[in-house]
C-alpha cells in the first residue's frame, strides 16, 4: 500500500494529487451515501418504475394501482411520524386522526376560501398541526392505557369540532373543489404526476426520519421508551423530548392530511373519524414498531388490503352470488382478522419478523417484546 502510494507520488505533481484526492473523497462519500441509504434507494427505484407495469395491469385486476400508491405515500408520511411516537418513544396515540384532519382542513380552507397557493396552504397545515400538538401536550404526562384513552378522546373532540363548526368546515357537507397538487409551469395534474410528487415528499421524510432516529435526539427518544426515570437520570429532559417528538409526529400528520385534501379534492369529517387513527396505529404496529421502513410496509399492506378485498369478487365476473358481491363489509372481517393474527403470531411486525427470519434464520413468529415472566 505504502509503496504504491510512494510510486504514484513520483509520477503526479502536487496539483494532480490534490485533484485525485478530491475525486476519491467524493467517490467515497457517494459510496457511503449509497450504502447507508440502500433501502431508501431500492424503494425509490421500485417506485420510479412502478407506473410502467402497474398502469397496464390496472384494468384486468380491477385495481388502480397508481392511485392506491398515492394513498400509500400519504399514509406512509403519517405512519412514519406515528412510528416515531409509538415505536421509538413508546407513547401511544390513538388520536392521530385529529392531526390528519386539522392538516386537511387547514390546507383546504386556506386554499379554497383564502385562495392561498397550494404549497403555502400545506405548509400552514403542518404548522397548524404542530401547534395543536403543542397545545395538547399536557396529556403526555399520562402513561400506557390512560394515554391511549386520552388521545382517543382527543380524536373524538377533533371529529366533533369538524362536524359542528359548520361556518368554517361546512359540517357534514364537507369542502369540495379543493385545488389539486401542482407546480407552476409544470403540468403534473395527472395521476402519475401526483404520484411522483407525493412519493418524492414521502422519501425525503423517510430519509429525514431515518437520520433522526440515529441522531442525539433519536437516542434520547429511544431512551424514553425504556424508562422515563432512567432517561432523566441520563440527563434527558423527558417532558420536553416527549413534546418535541409529539409535535413532530403531529406535523407529519398535518402534512399527510394537507396532501390528502389536495389529492382528493373533497373532504368531510367522516374521513377523519377514529377509524383513521386506528388504521394509522395498525399500519405502525403491523409494519413493525421501531422501524422506519415498517411504516412503508404497514401503509402499503393496509391500504392495498381493502382494495384487493373489494376487487377479488370482480375477478370472477358474473359467477359470484349476489349476496357475496353486495355485502360490503369483507374489509371489516379481513382487517379485523389481520390485526388479531399479526398481533398474536408476528407481534414485532412484518418487516422485523421477516428480516429476522432471513438474517438469523429465526422464526418470524417469535415475540421479541415478550415480557420476562418469573415462573
Amino acid at each position: 500500500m505504502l509503496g504504491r502510494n510512494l510510486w504514484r507520488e513520483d509520477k503526479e505533481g502536487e496539483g494532480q494529487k490534490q485533484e485525485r484526492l478530491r475525486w476519491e473523497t467524493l467517490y467515497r462519500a457517494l459510496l457511503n451515501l449509497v450504502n447507508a441509504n440502500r433501502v431508501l434507494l431500492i424503494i425509490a427505484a421500485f417506485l420510479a418504475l412502478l407506473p410502467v407495469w402497474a398502469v397496464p395491469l390496472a384494468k384486468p385486476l380491477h385495481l388502480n394501482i397508481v392511485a392506491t400508491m398515492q394513498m400509500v405515500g400519504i399514509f406512509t408520511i403519517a405512519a412514519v411520524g406515528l412510528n416515531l411516537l409509538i415505536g421509538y418513544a413508546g407513547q401511544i396515540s390513538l388520536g392521530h386522526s385529529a392531526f390528519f384532519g386539522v392538516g386537511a382542513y387547514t390546507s383546504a380552507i386556506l386554499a379554497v376560501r383564502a385562495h392561498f397557493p397550494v404549497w403555502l396552504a400545506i405548509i400552514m397545515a403542518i404548522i397548524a398541526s404542530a401547534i395543536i400538538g403543542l397545545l395538547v401536550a399536557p396529556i403526555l404526562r399520562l402513561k400506557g392505557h390512560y394515554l391511549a384513552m386520552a388521545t382517543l378522546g382527543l380524536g373524538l373532540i377533533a371529529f366533533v369540532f369538524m362536524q359542528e363548526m359548520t361556518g368554517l368546515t361546512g359540517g357534514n357537507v364537507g369542502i369540495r373543489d379543493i385545488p389539486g397538487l401542482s407546480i407552476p409551469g409544470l403540468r403534473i395534474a395527472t395521476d402519475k404526476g401526483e404520484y411522483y410528487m407525493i412519493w418524492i415528499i414521502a422519501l425525503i421524510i423517510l430519509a429525514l426520519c431515518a437520520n433522526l432516529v440515529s441522531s442525539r435526539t433519536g437516542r434520547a427518544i429511544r431512551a424514553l421508551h425504556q424508562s422515563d426515570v432512567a432517561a432523566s437520570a441520563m440527563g434527558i429532559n423527558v417532558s420536553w423530548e416527549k413534546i418535541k417528538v409529539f409535535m413532530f409526529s403531529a406535523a407529519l400528520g398535518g402534512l399527510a392530511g394537507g396532501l390528502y385534501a389536495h389529492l382528493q379534492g373533497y373532504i368531510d369529517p367522516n374521513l377523519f373519524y377514529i377509524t383513521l387513527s386506528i388504521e394509522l396505529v395498525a399500519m405502525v404496529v403491523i409494519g413493525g414498531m421501531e422501524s422506519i421502513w415498517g411504516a412503508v410496509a404497514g401503509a402499503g399492506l393496509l391500504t392495498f388490503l381493502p382494495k384487493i378485498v373489494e376487487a377479488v369478487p370482480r375477478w370472477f365476473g358474473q359467477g359470484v352470488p349476489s349476496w357475496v358481491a353486495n355485502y360490503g363489509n369483507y374489509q371489516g372481517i379481513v382487517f379485523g382478522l389481520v390485526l388479531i393474527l399479526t398481533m398474536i403470531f408476528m407481534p414485532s411486525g412484518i418487516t422485523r419478523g421477516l428480516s429476522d427470519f432471513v438474517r438469523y434464520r429465526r422464526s418470524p413468529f417469535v415475540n421479541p417484546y415478550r415480557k420476562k415472566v418469573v415462573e
Partner: protein
Amino acid sequence: MGFNIIFNSTGIINFAQGEFAMFGGLFAYSFAVALHLPLLLAVVLAIAATALIGAAMERAVVYPLRNASIITAIIATIGASIFFKAIGFLFWPKVAYKVPEFTSGNLSLPKATVSMQFLWVLGLTAISVVLVYVFFNRTKAGKAMRACSINRQAASLVGINVSRMSLYAFTLAAALGALAGLVNAPFAGYSIGLFLGIKGFTAAILGGLGNTFGAVTGGLVLGISEQLITGFLTLIVGVSTGYENAVAAALLILILLLRPQGLVGRGVVEKV
C-alpha cells in the same frame, strides 16, 4: 362495569366491550322476534350466547397475548371489535332493529311520564351492581379475580389459576355488556360502539378503576355533568347540542389529568 371487570382482572382495556352490547341486542332480536321465543327466554339465551362469544374471544385473542405489551393488546382488541362489527353486519344486515320492550307503555307519575323500559334499565342496573358486588366480595372466584388484579404473580403463587380467572372475567363482562345492550336496544339503534366505550371508560375511571360502586357513581356523575355542561353551553354560549360527545371526551381527558385515581380513590405510588 364490563370495562372495570376486565381491566381489574387482566389489566387490559377491552375495546370490543361495545360489540358485546351490540351482540346482546341483536341476539335478543333474533331469538324474540325471528324465532318467536318468549321474551324472558330470549333474553337469557342472548346473554348466554354473548357470554360464549366473550369466552371464545378470551381464549382466541387475549390468552395468547397474556405477556404482550400494552399496544399489542390494544390493537388486538380493536381488531376483535372491527371483526365482530363486520360479522354483525353479515348476519344482521339492517341498520336498526327493534327489540320488543319488556313492558310496553308508560308509567304516569304526578309530575312526569316515565317509560316502563326506563324503569327496567334502572332496576336491572341496580340488581346487576349488587350481584357484581356480592360476586367480588363474597365469593371465592370473585376474590380470586381481585387478587389477580392486585398482583398476578402473587395470585398464582397462592394457587389461583390466573388464566382461568381471565376467562371468567371476559365471560362475565360479555354477559353484562349483553345485558346493557339488550336493555338499551329499544332506545338506541345498531351502532352503539366507540362513544359508548369512551363513556364507559370515563365512568370507570371517574369512579376509580377496580371499584364496582365507583363505576356506577361515575356513570351517574358523568351522565349528569355531561347534560349540564352541554345544556349550559347551548343556553348561555349558544353552541349546538352536537358538542355533547366532545364534552364527554374532554371530561375524560380532564379526569385523567387531574384525578386519575377517581373521585374517591387514593393516589397510587408507583414504584420504578
